[in-house]
């Protein structure tokens, strides 16, 4: 389950020689986060999660992926808080918590 990861190493081109030819640049080079309008944050309860991956399949932003610990985790830099994962989870393992509390 590859997914784009925010790159803090991006250096903007300093002069014309550093620009690409045309509008082509290596993919997955995310330099900005995009989640500021999220009002509710999905939280996965690892004990309830059966790793059926329906949330991974249905997430419109592709921000749910396997963690190194073996469970699923959410990339909150890009999650918009739509709540589809919470609604579709058959184990009721995802809850939506209000942001800023």
């Amino acid at each position, binding site marked *: 389950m590859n997914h784009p990861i925010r790159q803090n190493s991006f250096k*903007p*081109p300093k002069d*014309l020689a550093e*620009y*690409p*030819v*045309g*509008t*082509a*640049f*290596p*993919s*997955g*080079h995310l330099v900005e986060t995009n989640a500021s309008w999220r009002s509710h944050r999905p939280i996965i309860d690892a004990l309830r999660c059966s790793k059926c991956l329906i949330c991974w399949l249905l997430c419109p932003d592709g921000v749910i992926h396997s963690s190194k610990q073996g469970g699923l985790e959410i990339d909150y830099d890009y999650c918009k808080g739509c709540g589809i994962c919470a609604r579709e989870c058959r184990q009721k393992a995802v809850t939506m918590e209000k942001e800023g509390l």
Partner: protein
Amino acid sequence: MLEQKAFLSGNEAVAAAVRLARPHVIAAYPITPQTTVIERLAEMVEEQSLKAEYLHVESEHSALSACIGASAVGARTFTASSSQGLLYMAECLHYASGGRFPVVMMNANRSLALPWNIYGDQRDSLSLLDCGWIQAYAEDAQESFDLIIQAYAIAEHPDVLTPMMINLDGFVITHTYELVSLPAQQDVDAFLPPFQTTNKMDLDHPMSLGFTAGPAFNQSFKQLQHLAMMAAVTVIDEVEARFRQFFGRHYPGLLETMHCNDAEFILVTLGSVAGTVRPVIEKLRSLGERVGFVRIRYMRPFPDAEIRKALAGSKAVGVLEKDISFGFEGTVFTNVNSALMRTKVVPPRLRNFIGGLGGKDIAAADIEQIFERMKSTDDGESVEFI
């Protein structure tokens, strides 16, 4: 060199050249007087003498969009259009040049409505000079053929990577039959190796294509486009020199001159009308008149230094063109004048002749009349319709 000669119309010569250039994808929508180009290509694909994807599209906008998409996976592409169809592509012309996709297009120069008219003038392509495409203007079927072969070498050159439009005067070139030399496939293959680019979608090296660039970065992309177009000046010379080695025919770069060295009165024009001008020049020369002729072959990149050199020392310059920018003057005249303003000695008289609009005939007698007007010292109208 295995060469064949064939009796072909300008459009058929273009189709024959496209086949020899081995494009992967052809997408086009028919419009008079371009139609027979894409009819011939469709037949070639059908009979499998050309192994290309031929895309049937619903509009010119889609035709060029399809070529851009194909170019974005590294394919060699071809499209053709004319007049209203070319203008319908206008949005995509900028996408192709901004994305640096070296699409090659043939345009059959034709009048723009209204009044509706299918005959030749150059208002279609000249109104799109600023869209970032290299623009060449052919004089006959052989040059049309040769320009198509050269276009891929120029447009796909790594220093250029800019789309190229080959313009043929509607009917006068597109539908006139001439004897055309056709080189052998293996010679064209040696002259024109397969298209290579890093500016493409690639599973092994995934790229984001066609991205946004905000105010901090956008202008730099445009500056690079301009530099690439200027780099084409050198590349055109190199490609023409190599073309001569391979196929024997010599082309003179961005413009062609005739008797300009000692000429007092020089006519500047472009496209097929050159064929009418040449014998008039020879006739007037035989009468002892010091007349000369410049045929612009490329409008972009513009032959800036070449125009200054060709017109230096003349008493009067006339620009004859099949277009007008309403409310001012002909676009070619504007471009020629701008180049001349950067020289210390501007020719004393500059006259603009507009003719051939909507296919109106330009006869040898009209050319002689133009030279008479150039001799006149009256101020006259800034633009004269012939």
